[in-house]
């Protein structure tokens, strides 16, 4: 087989990409669980997080490459600012493109179209404000292999991305299962009307869900930008892939999104070995179509309320 040749390196880089997809997929899944809507503009939340993190790092970093604790601090700064900007973007998005329609009880198509409008707007505005060229995040450390798995080098970049993603996932999991907010989110996901009768402020929960998804998406944006580059249209494919990941795991299902993200990253990475690289972006799409055809509820079923 074409992918057995370089299996381990491909697997490792697949997991790296997959952990970013998982972070972004959580945003799709959370919003879908609560509103039964695909947040079409989530890819632009991801992009704004990347720019937020990049901007913050650019402001602080000196001309010299940082070392030791400064490196850790700068990465943390990038992730946190990316998350904050992503959360802010998601908040604004909900306020502008979703809430007025929800107040009116608009049909689902209207939400989808207004989200597409928001995505289109944000994408092109970013193109105008930040130029069309890819921008590299300042070098914060020397990239090197930390250890090897069956001869496959595991770069420190991979470890950082995977570590941050895993940490964020654990935090979200705790928030959803342990806190009052998480209880509210699960309640609204199960049955919004009943939840509101039980005293849950549904509007507040919806906003919180968007912001939570935005925080994760924004952090994911910075991580992705650190590994690749930051560009105004960087959100499109990761967005599509993360959405695929969410569907693969069962949209609305939190653990499903994480497993789906990792799985998709690996499928994609192994698949690229079999075809020309310029077609790599279509693999995720094929996965999406197949999943939707064969098992539209995904691997773990659609249930934020129960499976979380």
């Amino acid at each position, binding site marked *: 087989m074409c992918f057995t040749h370089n299996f381990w390196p491909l697997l490792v880089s697949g997991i790296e990409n997959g952990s970013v997809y998982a972070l972004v997929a959580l945003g799709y899944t959370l919003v879908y669980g609560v509103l039964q809507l695909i947040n079409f503009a989530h890819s632009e939340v991801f992009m704004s997080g990347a720019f937020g993190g990049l901007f913050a790092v650019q402001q602080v970093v000196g001309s010299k490459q940082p070392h030791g604790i400064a490196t850790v601090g700068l990465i943390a700064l990038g992730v946190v600012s990316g998350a904050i900007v992503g959360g802010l973007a998601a908040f604004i998005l909900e306020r502008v493109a979703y809430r*007025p329609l929800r107040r009116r009880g608009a049909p689902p198509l209207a939400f989808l179209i207004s989200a*597409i409008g928001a995505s289109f707007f944000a994408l092109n505005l970013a193109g105008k404000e930040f130029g069309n060229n890819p921008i590299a995040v300042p070098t914060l450390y020397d990239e090197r292999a930390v250890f090897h798995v069956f001869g496959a080098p595991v770069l420190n970049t991979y470890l950082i991305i995977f570590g941050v993603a895993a940490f964020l996932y654990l935090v979200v999991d705790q928030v959803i299962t342990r806190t009052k907010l998480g209880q509210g989110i699960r309640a609204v996901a199960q049955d919004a009307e009943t939840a509101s009768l039980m005293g849950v402020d549904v509007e507040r929960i919806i906003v919180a869900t968007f912001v939570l998804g935005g925080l994760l998406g924004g952090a994911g944006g910075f991580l992705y930008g650190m590994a690749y580059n930051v560009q105004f249209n960087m959100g*499109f494919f990761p967005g599509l892939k993360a959405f695929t990941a969410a569907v693969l795991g069962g949209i609305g299902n939190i653990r499903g999104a994480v497993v789906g993200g990792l799985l998709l990253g690996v499928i994609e990475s192994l698949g690229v070995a079999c075809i020309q690289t310029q*077609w790599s972006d279509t693999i995720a799409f094929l996965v999406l179509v197949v999943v939707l055809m064969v098992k539209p509820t995904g691997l773990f079923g659609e249930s934020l309320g129960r499976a979380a």
Partner: protein
Amino acid sequence: MTSPAADRRIRLAEGAKGRLVGWLSMVLVLALISGPGGSSSALSYGFRHSILRPRVIPFVVVGVVAWALLEVVRLRREMVRSAVLGRFEGIRQRAGAVPRNRLTRSVLPLVALVVAIAIPPFLNGYWQTVLVQEMGIFTLLALGLNVVVGFAGLLDLGYIAFFAVGSYTTAYFTGRLPVVPPFTLNPFWVLPLAILAALIAGVVLGAPTLRLRGDYLAIVTLGFGEIVFSFARNKTDITNGDSGAFNIPHFSIHAAGIHYTWGGKQLPYYWVLLVFVVLIMFLFRRLEHSRVGRAWTAIREDEVAAAASGVPTVRYKLLAFAIGASTSGFAGVLYAANVGFITDTNFVLQQSILVLVLVIFGGMGSMWGVLVGAAFLEWLPEKLRGSVPPSDRFIYFGLLIILMMIFRPQGMIPSRRRALEIKQAEAGVGEADALGLPKEVE
């Protein structure tokens, strides 16, 4: 104790502060869009020079004044309304229910047709080109997408892919691609082939995907559009990639004693377009009021109920998809023959969204709305070309979509049925689009 009069003077209508914030953010966004852009080496340049400069003051003033004026109007209206106990509402609704009279039904289209025939010969070359290549082609595209989005309620985000199929079929059969066709044809005779090719593409994409819920369909069509684009870009041995296909010949007829070549002039193309737009509008109008159209309406309003009443929903959705696709393919041939040069960048996602904007702006499901809306939105950027950078127009279009969805989801010239459906859906009756299909009926 304050007197009632004084009390009234400082009173604001409910939600006034929220609307002020809305107006202010709106004008700030406009200030940002209209200001200078930044670059990858100076990320905050655009923000600093468009919002943190004195040029922002007029924007803010306009925003506050507009807010204040509208609040006064709103307050007045509220007072009047409470005084007459909502009697106006009843009158307004009844006025809206008056059937369309003969004037709008037969005279206005005739006037429109006369204008469409009489004006173009007097335009200069530049505007004739705009008329054909921007307004005409995109009107055709919008009319086709209207069948999919407006009539059947399916969101297709890869619509431009079928346009690409039409264009590349033309390039192929005129021998302008690296792959050699079995025989070469004039673009005019490619028309039926291209329509067929686009139709097949529509069915091939639609058959497996149209069973999906509408929001999934949107993403799948988006991905499909992107695959067609990457095919056009990457399969250079077939499509020539970003160097594109050159010298696609003009239309010409050499048959049955008629010899005519369209040549480099725009006007002859315009007549072809006009004939076909009129024809297509007539056909679609007949379809809309036929059994097929009623099936689409039923699917759009409540797919479950339609399926339960025996409407073969997938078949009718597929039909809408195929009709939309073939219209798009048809427009692709016209474009390829008229411009003579196609490249992958003609078929980017932005073009699909652009056509969607045209349909939404005019009014989903309203053919006159789509016609006028498409022509207007294609004309305006050309008119403003000098004062607004062309690259900014997509930002404005994105903004326009959001604003339309918030304030006027039925479009500028709405289809009366669609407007009613949206109203009903908002009141909790029906779905008003095919998005609500639960899994059991798939």
